[in-house]
């Protein structure tokens, strides 16, 4: 028995059942109250509001130096400027079109290669090491190359996002293909389904959960890479806005830009959640 056990607990633990009975009838102690996740819908917004409130107070009282962090009200004002001048939509339009285009190309190409690696032994043997070798390369390091290959127009920006989203999608897809129940494939063969039908009706839907969770990750990577992508010759775009704010040390704009990225991230996560619910309604 541990020496630090409370003395009465120790006594109770040693008490024989007959003696416990003598203490009278009582309910069994309830122990199931811990580690029970439940949904608390207002917690997240409340935490956000409290944090922002504290931050504002800290800035107003001078506790937080304006050089260290601008007040949230200043960031909101910067956001207001963006909306008022209409620049917000130009930045959003530029960034979203790059995100959508880059992410779509990267994801589609990634799924195709992921399927190839998942389905064909030759592709797996030949390409999966290549994928593993190229995946960890920071795409930012390749920017100068991308300039030469894809130009400083939209090409290199989209390419950065394509490269960033392609590899995680490949890995998620072939992982998903690997995880498809072999029996299901054998079932398809035993019913003499064509290989195309097996891929389309059995393997793809079976890999879909993995592909969608891969999409969650690749979408976040795409947003992270947006700033890097817009380092090259971008006049408009949220990444370009953040970079400019950083170089001008305009911290209110910087925070406003970062908040916009967060909002895009939240929106994308929500959209993918919706897609999951729509496409994977057979799960739960």
């Amino acid at each position, binding site marked *: 028995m541990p020496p630090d056990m409370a003395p009465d607990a120790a006594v109770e633990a040693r008490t024989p059942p007959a003696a416990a009975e003598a203490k009278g009838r009582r309910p069994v102690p309830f122990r199931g109250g811990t580690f029970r996740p439940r949904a608390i819908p207002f917690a997240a917004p409340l935490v956000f509001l409290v944090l922002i409130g504290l931050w504002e107070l800290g800035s107003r009282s001078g506790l937080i130096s304006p050089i260290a962090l601008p007040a949230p009200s200043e960031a909101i004002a910067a956001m207001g400027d963006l909306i008022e001048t209409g620049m917000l939509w130009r930045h959003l339009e530029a960034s979203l079109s790059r995100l959508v285009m880059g992410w779509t190309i990267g994801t589609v190409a990634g799924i195709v290669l992921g399927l190839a690696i998942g389905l064909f032994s030759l592709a797996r043997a030949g390409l999966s090491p290549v994928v593993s070798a190229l995946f960890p390369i920071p795409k930012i390091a390749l920017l100068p190359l991308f300039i030469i290959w894809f130009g400083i127009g939209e090409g290199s920006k989209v390419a950065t996002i394509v490269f960033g989203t392609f590899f995680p999608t490949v890995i998620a897809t072939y992982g998903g293909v690997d995880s498809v*129940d072999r029996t299901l494939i*054998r*079932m398809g063969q*035993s*019913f003499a389904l064509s290989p195309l*039908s097996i891929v389309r009706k059995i393997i793809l839907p079976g890999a879909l959960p993995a592909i969608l969770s891969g999409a969650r990750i690749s979408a976040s990577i795409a947003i992270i890479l947006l700033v890097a992508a817009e380092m090259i010759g971008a006049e408009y775009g949220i990444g370009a806005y953040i970079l400019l704010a950083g170089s001008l040390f305009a911290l209110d704009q910087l925070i406003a830009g970062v908040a916009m990225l967060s909002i895009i991230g939240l929106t994308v996560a929500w959209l993918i959640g919706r897609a999951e619910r729509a496409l994977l309604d*057979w799960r739960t």
Partner: protein
Amino acid sequence: MRLSVEGVGHAYGGTTVLDGIDLAIAPGEIVAVVGPSGCGKSTLLRLIGGLERPTVGGVFIEGDAPAGSLNPITTVFQDFALLPWRTAAGNVALALEDHRLTRAERDEIVADVLARTKLTDFAGAWPRQLSGGMKQRVAIARALAVRPAVMLMDEPLSALDAQTRELLLDDLRDLWVRERFSAVYVTHNLAEAVQLGHRVMVLSRRPGRIREVVEIDVPLPDRPARAAELEPMQRQLWQMMRDEAMAADRELTDAA
């Protein structure tokens, strides 16, 4: 259509799992295959189903498949092999989609087999919503949909609880009475074998060889009523298998 297995032997790597299997399945006949675990029962079924090629010997079909048969040799899997992303009706339809059928024809077949397996009310249910017994009924409906000449049943009831198993066994028997399908019924459950098999083929432990083929000449529909007659046959089969099963139990199953 007749199906015959002639001198089939199979090996994975250096391990022989089946050796010298000869078996002919006549139309409308159910052959139950029993044997200790790891004796190659499921392998035999995959060889017959054309999912694997035997190392020695061959599996042949003779004569035409019955008219309207879309997939003469059709497997029913132990763990149902239902696509979780398709409803019961969708799973049945899957087997028909690669055949030249109009939508109406397909829908008709699906409705028909679901009715025959008493699943009409569950046509729109997801597999996750169905009990094990219901899932296997869907799988059987799917097999029936392609009008097989031979059904290969790989321990179709062993993933189910005892009561469901009894119910489904009755269903299968009724189905046979109506459809007169022929089948190779692999099981490790001797009660199932004597309830459903016209013949019971006993395999030895690995490498699986035919130890005995027992004819059970009680007509299928009469079997529930004449259970007492089946009892000694089941005991006889168990005597045969007992030693094999004990020895097999002590082996490492690396070739399953």
